[in-house]
């Protein structure tokens, strides 16, 4: 039997095992055991992540020479929040299961929302069709063939009323993926809530409203960067006073990653975008602790399991440091990096599409272990089309299996303290900070975008990856290895009748509204834009008069102009 004294001795001995000793022992092991044994194995392969990061054969305390538990890791809910922003994390409350969804007309999507809520989904997430994302109406020439295809068609408040009919906006929270025209769609949501008798003070949800990543990656921009940033700060200012439970921005790495960025580029460009929004908010004269707690983030969860988990942890640490030290925020809620995660769309393959269920499950597990606040799991058929009901059900069930069967939510930050995870977290944070510094030196993110810097970095990474796949240096199951014929799977189809229905509704809205009110609210809006006032109250008046999205955007284009992207590849 071990005695207390022996335990004490063991402790002292363990303490004496300093990093240099471990480093020496590790090097001896690598030379005498590992390398020799490896010679007898298959020809050497480069062990790299999907982002091209070299991974060592083994991680030990020697990789973390000055690691300090209380300083670097600490406890959940305590600075620097490596282990999570809340003391209870998923034990206190599971992540929100929020499937991004929208297609066809507002009626079609309203039905899908009711289906998802009936099957255990806990929040709504609206996917708009491309004309809405671009701020044009369904009857615009460029909208031909696009109506209801990539999301739900919303042209005016009338569509929005149908979209949320029978959904109590005081109970359900809603995320809206909308950027260039975000302030207008938000105004429509507030107006629908008011019609339901729900005060703006109690509604809760998120608008994506992140224009910087549009110039960098997703490309659904309309106005030039500077007036776009002005409009975003308007929503911060208005939200802080009038819609206090709303997240006025979801600073998004998702699209940056999908466009080809590495994990570190996603981390760095996204956080630098966040810093840019804070700088513009402060320049408006807002108090940091007044608006920072409403900033939220949105990351990608890609296929490289450990790299993704480390990325989420590093993001929390960098943001906490930036908010506390660089901006002097005092409210701990300003230090929290709250984030939504979506599994990686580009990682899904058209070949043998049922394999995508497995990819999604691994990516979703990484998000959970990384401490996400909400999660969208992609459906297996999303390389072809918007998801069918069966496919979206499997995607939702994947989250429920993770939550209730896998045990992943039983303890907080289960991989914390792993030599590998802690080393990756530290390395990725360091590399991201170097990028952030580089962009600071350029004069900020708006300037970096004007110079084409993040765009070029991402295009380079995307091309590197494609070449690696073409050369089979990166194996993609079913695509460049283990190929097999497969039968086509059933897909959701949006037929062209959706376009006709939507055009009919748009015509009837335009006919039945009070024309003078439309004209007056639009002209007031333009004047307010010229006078650089906060536009939210004016936008609310426009949408309530049933001015269409396209009409409102046209009025603003007259004042702000339109962005022309420099064409490069």
């Amino acid at each position, binding site marked *: 039997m071990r005695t207390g004294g022996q335990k004490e001795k063991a402790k002292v001995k363990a303490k004496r095992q300093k990093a240099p000793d471990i480093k020496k022992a590790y090097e001896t092991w690598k030379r005498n055991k590992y390398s020799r044994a490896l010679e007898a194995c298959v020809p050497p392969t480069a062990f790299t992540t999907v982002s091209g990061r070299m991974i060592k054969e083994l991680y030990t305390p020697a990789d973390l020479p000055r690691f300090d538990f209380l300083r670097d890791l600490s406890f959940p809910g305590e600075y620097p929040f490596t282990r999570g922003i809340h003391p209870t994390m998923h034990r206190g409350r599971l992540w929100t299961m929020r499937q991004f969804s929208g297609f066809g007309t507002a009626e079609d999507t309203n039905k899908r929302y009711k289906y998802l809520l009936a099957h255990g989904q806990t929040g709504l997430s609206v996917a708009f069709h*491309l004309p809405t994302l671009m701020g044009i109406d369904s009857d615009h020439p460029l909208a031909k063939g696009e109506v209801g295809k990539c999301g739900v068609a919303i042209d005016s408040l009338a569509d929005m009323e149908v979209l949320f009919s029978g959904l109590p906006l005081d109970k359900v929270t809603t995320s809206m993926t909308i950027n260039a025209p975000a302030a207008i769609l938000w105004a429509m949501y507030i107006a629908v809530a008011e019609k339901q008798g729900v005060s703006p003070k109690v509604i809760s949800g998120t608008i994506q409203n992140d224009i910087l990543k549009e110039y960098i990656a997703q490309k659904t921009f309309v106005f030039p960067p500077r007036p776009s940033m002005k409009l975003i700060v308007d929503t911060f200012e208005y939200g802080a006073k009038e819609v206090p439970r709303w997240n006025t921005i979801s600073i998004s790495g998702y699209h940056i990653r999908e466009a080809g960025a590495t994990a570190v580029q996603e981390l760095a460009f996204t956080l630098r975008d966040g810093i840019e929004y804070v700088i513009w908010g402060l320049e408006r004269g807002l108090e940091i602790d007044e608006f920072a707690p409403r900033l939220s983030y949105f990351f990608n969860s890609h296929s490289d399991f450990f790299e993704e988990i480390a990325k989420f942890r590093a993001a929390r640490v960098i943001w906490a440091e930036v908010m506390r030290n660089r901006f002097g925020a005092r409210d701990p809620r300003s230090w929290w990096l709250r984030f939504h995660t979506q599994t990686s769309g580009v990682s899904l393959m058209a070949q043998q599409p049922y394999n995508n269920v497995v990819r999604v499950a691994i990516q979703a597990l990484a998000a959970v272990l990384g401490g996400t606040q909400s999660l969208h799991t992609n459906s297996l058929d999303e390389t072809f089309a918007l998801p069918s009901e069966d496919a979206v059900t499997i995607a939702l069930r994947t989250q429920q299996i993770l939550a209730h069967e896998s045990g992943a939510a039983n303890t907080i930050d289960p991989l914390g303290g792993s030599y590998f995870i802690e080393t990756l977290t530290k390395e990725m944070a360091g590399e991201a900070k170097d990028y952030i510094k580089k962009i600071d030196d350029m004069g900020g993110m708006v300037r970096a975008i004007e110079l084409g810097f993040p765009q070029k970095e991402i295009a380079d990474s995307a091309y590197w990856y494609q070449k690696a796949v073409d050369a089979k240096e990166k194996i993609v199951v079913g695509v460049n290895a283990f190929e097999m014929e497969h039968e086509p799977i059933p897909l959701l189809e949006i037929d062209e009748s959706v376009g006709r229905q939507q055009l009919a509704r748009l015509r009837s809205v335009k006919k039945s509204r009070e024309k003078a009110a439309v004209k007056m609210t639009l002209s007031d809006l333009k004047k307010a834009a010229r006078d650089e006032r906060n536009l939210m109250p004016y936008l609310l008046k426009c949408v309530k008069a049933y001015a269409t999205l396209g009409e409102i955007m046209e009025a603003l284009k007259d004042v702000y102009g339109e962005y022309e992207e420099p064409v490069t590849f």
Partner: protein
Amino acid sequence: MPKKKIRVLVAKPGLDGHDRGAKVICRALRDAGMEVIYTGLRRTPEEIVNAAIQEDADLIGLSILSGAHPILFPRIIGLLKEKGAEDIPVIAGGIIPEKDVPRMKKAGIREIFLPGTSTRDIVGWIREHIEKGGRKR
């Protein structure tokens, strides 16, 4: 006389901003020794056809992920015919459901490259089908 390089117009019709694939293709074709002209995003069928004629393109490559291909592809083919430029072959890639492929080929798209196609296969197809220094007439 040195052989003329193959000139490819890479175009993005439709409203989507997903240009990762188009840009990767542009670079791969350029690295394979072709001349590449990229239109940028959200070009109308008219703009694409006019650019192809003005640039004297040997080939048009369309990339679209928005789902509007059933409307836009036939429109582009129709405009090429109207302008007497139907000898410029058109190929396409992006999110195009397999079941739409026969219909799009019937409309006049020469080849459709589905997700997962290697850039080498696309380069190979172009070398095989497009004569150096001019269109196949």
